[in-house]
């Protein structure tokens, strides 16, 4: 027995994910959210890179000052995207209808997550003039810049997975935002030099390294140097997968709330 028995051919999981992705991705551009997010992201990314990071003053043809602030930007901007993913469905009650669809929550979770990730990747891609500027002024290592872009996209993806999962727990978008911002901050904190130095004072090296390896910042900075290490890719893949799996359980658990 399948949904085909109802006179309807069953869709594959990929087709369902694609339907959810299209609707979700379009929805960003049907509200002012997309414009506001893009303007703020581009403005702050530029401000941090040129004013605080001193991109010109360093006299080096690289984008390190540009990328080094992305984690801190994402701590506040990614929750703004992820907060609505499920909290909005819960607030409007649409979750009730989508949870009676003839397939599990996984397709919905993946479709919505990929749309959010695609949206933040569009925002990131719109920073390409910075790359062009540096290329025009000097002779940067384009491979390093490309890997740094990949690292930035993966970091945003990891934060979005955390945010999507936390958004499933509440119908209040503000709560979803705060929870996600705090969780992302904690995910960065373990790799922050000040925290590592503090730990080194009393904890064994193995423990310090263990804690640092759980930090998104450690893996992000490793990739930002232009090195594609399998461990870094695995880290981001695991964080994304783990939070999306928890997201599916959370949706199923709280579907009738």
């Amino acid at each position, binding site marked *: *027995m*399948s*949904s085909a*028995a*109802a*006179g*309807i*051919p*069953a*869709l594959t999981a990929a*087709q*369902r994910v694609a*339907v*959810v992705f299209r*609707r979700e991705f379009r*929805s960003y551009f*049907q*509200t002012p959210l997309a414009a506001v997010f893009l303007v703020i992201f581009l403005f702050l990314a530029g401000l941090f890179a040129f004013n605080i990071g001193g991109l010109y003053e360093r006299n080096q043809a690289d984008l390190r000052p540009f990328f080094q602030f992305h984690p801190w930007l994402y701590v506040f901007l990614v929750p703004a995207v992820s907060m609505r993913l499920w909290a909005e469905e819960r607030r*409007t*009650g*649409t979750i*009730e*209808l*989508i*949870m*009676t*669809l*003839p*397939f*599990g929550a996984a397709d919905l979770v993946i479709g919505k997550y990929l749309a959010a990730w695609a949206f933040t990747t569009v925002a990131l891609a719109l920073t390409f003039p910075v790359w062009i500027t540096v290329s025009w002024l000097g002779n940067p290592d384009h491979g390093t810049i490309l890997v740094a872009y990949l690292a930035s996209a993966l970091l945003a993806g990891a934060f979005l997975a955390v945010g999507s999962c936390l958004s499933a727990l509440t119908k209040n978008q503000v709560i979803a935002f705060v929870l996600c911002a705090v969780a992302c901050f904690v995910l960065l904190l373990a790799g922050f030099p000040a925290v590592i130095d503090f730990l080194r004072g009393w904890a064994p090296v193995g423990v310090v390294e263990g804690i640092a390896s759980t930090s998104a910042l450690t893996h992000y900075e490793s990739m930002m140097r232009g090195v594609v290490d399998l461990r870094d890719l695995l880290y981001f893949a695991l964080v994304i997968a783990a939070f999306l799996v928890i997201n599916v359980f959370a949706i199923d658990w709280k*579907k*009738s709330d």
Partner: protein
Amino acid sequence: MGAACGEFKRAGRRGARLFGPLRYPPTPLLSLRAIRKQFGPIAAVDGLWLDVAAGEVFGLLGPNGAGKSTTIAMATGLLVPDSGAVEILGLGSPSDPKVRAHLGLAPQEITLYGELTARENLVFFARLYGVREPRRRVDELLARVELDGRANDRISTFSGGMKRRLNLAAALVHDPRVVLLDEPTAGVDPQSRARILELVRELAREGKTIVYTTHYMEEAAKVCDRVGIVDHGKMLDLGTVSELIGRHGGRTAVTVERDGAEERVLTLDPVGEVSRQLATGGVTGVRVERPDLETVFLSLTGRSLRE
């Protein structure tokens, strides 16, 4: 399950073809068997049994908080009963996604995307259900709920009644066999209410099984083949409206006006009573008040439905 499925095929499909739409074929398309759901110390649904047949409109009538929406949530798989079982078309529980393909739900709240147009909302759900030619199906449904003229408008601009009609269309987009309507006329204008009730009757004529929750007695009496009176999570009684009135409605009140004074008589034989009163002469007016579902509810629960 196998036997039940076989019975369904014989009774539902072949039966409907040979004898026209069946009002009460033997095998239910929706079965609730002693379902129970507890929220903390409160039993929202307490051992509720129900069988609804193909082509039947079954009304769950009860006040707010009676357990109607919790029952619907369990029937659609949104909630898992603490005990008891739900079976759809003899195929199994709605927690199985394949079984859910046969269910259509119009929840009590408007569950559509405000930033999308009416057509975009329905096309989205049609695509998720894998409906062939989703645009054609959506246009057909929009015409059916009389929203074809507003198909390309964002639903955030719609009135409550229009949103309700669209909510109903969303429940029908995949042509389900069992349709669950949770208070589909709550807070709507008379025009939308009339269209929704008419549509429910049309769907029943097409052989769909409909469960309709409401706390409006006149609606239940108008559209439902059978009605179940629910209160405190229990099914107090069920049957056709006339059966329920016959069992619990009590006597008919006959008020006779004579010489400017009114006399009220309670009787089981209103026609005989009116004849008797007329025969005595001097009668200037007669008013007969038959018991209705409100009387039934009062008799079963000891309180008014609107309390």
